[in-house]
């Protein structure tokens, strides 16, 4: 990872790095908080993979390797901000307060969303990637019109960076100086397509062509991701316009549980990235610099296990929805074909639901 423009505050070994542009503003307790978040979302992710393997989920999209990118960005947000995720933003959802079980409703195929996006100010997952970047820009235009000191943030990956909607979002954000941060997790692989096929230049360079700043940050360094995101958000909130952040990271796991990455990438590459683990480097820092004891680390693991047990219980309790609920919220106002469908379903005895 030799890139002199890469913002890094913590080496893979957990040594602090002097940066001319950024410095860590977090104290020991706050760093421990980020560590805790990362351990919990990793556990959440592993439990979900197990649930899928046991036939309890239709699909799962793992985030292993990307915990620092998501927790660093997620904790830089303030409650007033609004985030627009893909289906792989479990760490962001965690930071926004979405209950873990709700994150799995989509993957258990009992919902097309899973949580109340207005309550958590975290939009529902976008599956047709790229679209959400335009939603974030539109939302940011609304913030401007309200005169609020808030920002919106769009999440996408190196794969989606090739989508036209992402380019259009860049154009609009620049033209209207919208308070939006584009957070690209370059995890090197769009299913089997390497990021070199998506872009011939470092992705963050693209921002300059659109007229706003781009920053590449070590996506496995939670301290650096936090500071870079915080500054971009602060700039956006006070009229500084958009920023593109490229969090340079790696998808350790498969694209989804339906994917087999051994068909397109070599183990040696994965091993290299495992040595850059985002969780271990913070743990090393906490142990060395803040004298955090093993008992404290163990307590976090315990908390993660408890969360996982609860998650499993909650997921198993999610039963097949009453088919008649498919008619709910298809439209906001009454619609004759919705009424017709409901009536037919009741007449067929498929549902006991009342009109």
């Amino acid at each position: 990872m030799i890139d002199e423009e890469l913002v890094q505050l913590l080496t893979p070994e957990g040594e602090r790095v002097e940066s001319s542009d950024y410095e860590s503003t977090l104290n020991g307790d706050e760093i421990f908080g980020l560590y805790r978040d990362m351990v919990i979302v990793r556990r959440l992710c592993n439990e979900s993979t197990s649930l899928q393997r046991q036939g309890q989920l239709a699909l799962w999209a793992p985030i292993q390797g990307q915990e620092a990118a998501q927790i660093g960005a997620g904790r830089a947000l303030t409650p007033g901000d609004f985030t627009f995720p893909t289906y792989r933003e479990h760490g962001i959802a965690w930071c926004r307060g979405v209950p873990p079980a709700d994150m799995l409703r989509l993957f258990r195929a009992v919902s097309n969303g899973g949580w109340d996006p207005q309550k958590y100010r975290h939009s529902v997952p976008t599956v047709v990637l790229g679209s959400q970047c335009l939603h974030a820009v539109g939302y940011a235009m609304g913030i401007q019109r309200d005169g609020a000191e808030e920002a919106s943030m769009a999440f996408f990956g190196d794969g989606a960076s090739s989508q036209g909607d992402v380019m259009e979002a860049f154009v609009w954000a620049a033209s209207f100086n919208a308070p939006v941060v584009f957070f690209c997790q370059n995890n090197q692989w769009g299913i089997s397509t390497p990021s070199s096929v998506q872009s011939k230049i470092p992705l963050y360079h693209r921002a300059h062509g659109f007229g706003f700043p781009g920053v590449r940050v070590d996506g496995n360094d939670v301290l650096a991701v936090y500071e870079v995101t915080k500054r971009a958000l602060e700039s956006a909130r006070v009229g500084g316009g958009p920023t593109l952040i490229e969090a340079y990271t790696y998808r350790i796991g498969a694209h989804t549980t339906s994917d087999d990455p051994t068909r397109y990438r070599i183990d040696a590459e994965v091993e290299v990235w495992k040595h850059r683990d985002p969780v271990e480097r913070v743990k090393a820092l906490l142990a060395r610099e803040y004298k955090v004891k093993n008992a404290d680390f163990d307590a976090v693991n315990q908390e993660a296990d408890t969360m996982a047990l609860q998650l499993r219980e909650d997921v198993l309790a999610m039963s097949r929805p009453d088919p008649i609920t498919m008619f709910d919220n298809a439209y906001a106002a009454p619609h004759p074909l919705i009424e017709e469908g409901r009536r037919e379903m009741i007449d067929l005895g498929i549902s006991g639901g009342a009109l």
Partner: protein
Amino acid sequence: MATTTMTMAKALNEGLRRAMEKNPKVLLMGEDIGRLGGVFRITDGLQKDFGEDRVIDSPLAESAIVGTAVGLAIRGYRAVCEIQFDGFVYPAFDQIVSQVAKLHKRSDGAYIMGMVIRIPFQGGIGAIEHHSESPEPYFAQTAGLRVVSCSTPNDAYWMIQQSIEHDDPIIFCEPKSRYWEKGEVDLETPPAGLFDALVRREGTDVTLIGYGASMKTCLRAAETAQAEGTSIEVIDARSIAPLDIELMAKSVEKTGRVVVVQESPHTASVGSEIVSELTQRCFYSLRAPGLRVSGYHVPYPPTRIEEDYRPTVDRILDAVDRVMGFES
């Protein structure tokens, strides 16, 4: 009754103005709609009066016009998007069918996706390719959307306001060839609900159903037929999705014959849906199979020959003759 005479273009302009006065969250977005007032001048003068924050001259990117309208809706704004010409809506197709149509459902009702996507549609203005299409069947087929079309200045004035007030996303199809035709506008009372069809002319022998620019052709056909002794009831569908099938069925139960007119090709079209529904509901009243008079199944032709593509009075009367001459 306070009525005044104006063109459909002016009626839309006045309707937009009134909606913006009523609700400060209403925004207009589109290409060249501000300083220029739109290529058809529908938004003429609105940016001057409501400012650049509410009448937004957008970059040339249809997917972004609709995609940002989604974000604005999530923030509580109500965008009225202008798609400059029918053939330019396809870059926004993904946002419309995958996002606009589905986000209310995906969010379990937390997002109100109220927005209006205005599309000048149908032919008849002698334009070059991509400026004369009828994309409404694509949208009529998509659950989560509603599709309406105005055919008179009075409907234009009221339906645009009703669409903006409605909480579901509306594809608002404007017959561009009728923009400059004048008609009476009642400034106090709407002619009907947004999703109601209207009987434009009463008759007893054949029910003739159309929408948008085809309405005028239908009325001309009815007049000609009257002279030849055939009484045609003309229905303006107004709402394409959902259809006001009750009103249409009532008419067909009376006449026993139906012809639907549209500029789109007839495969999987609005006319197909109307004929199918009416066949199901009025089977025992029908005295002839329902017919469709449509555009041909070809890319919209060079406009020197478009009048042989679009339904004409002659083609409509030919279909009327066929249903009148049908012996079961």
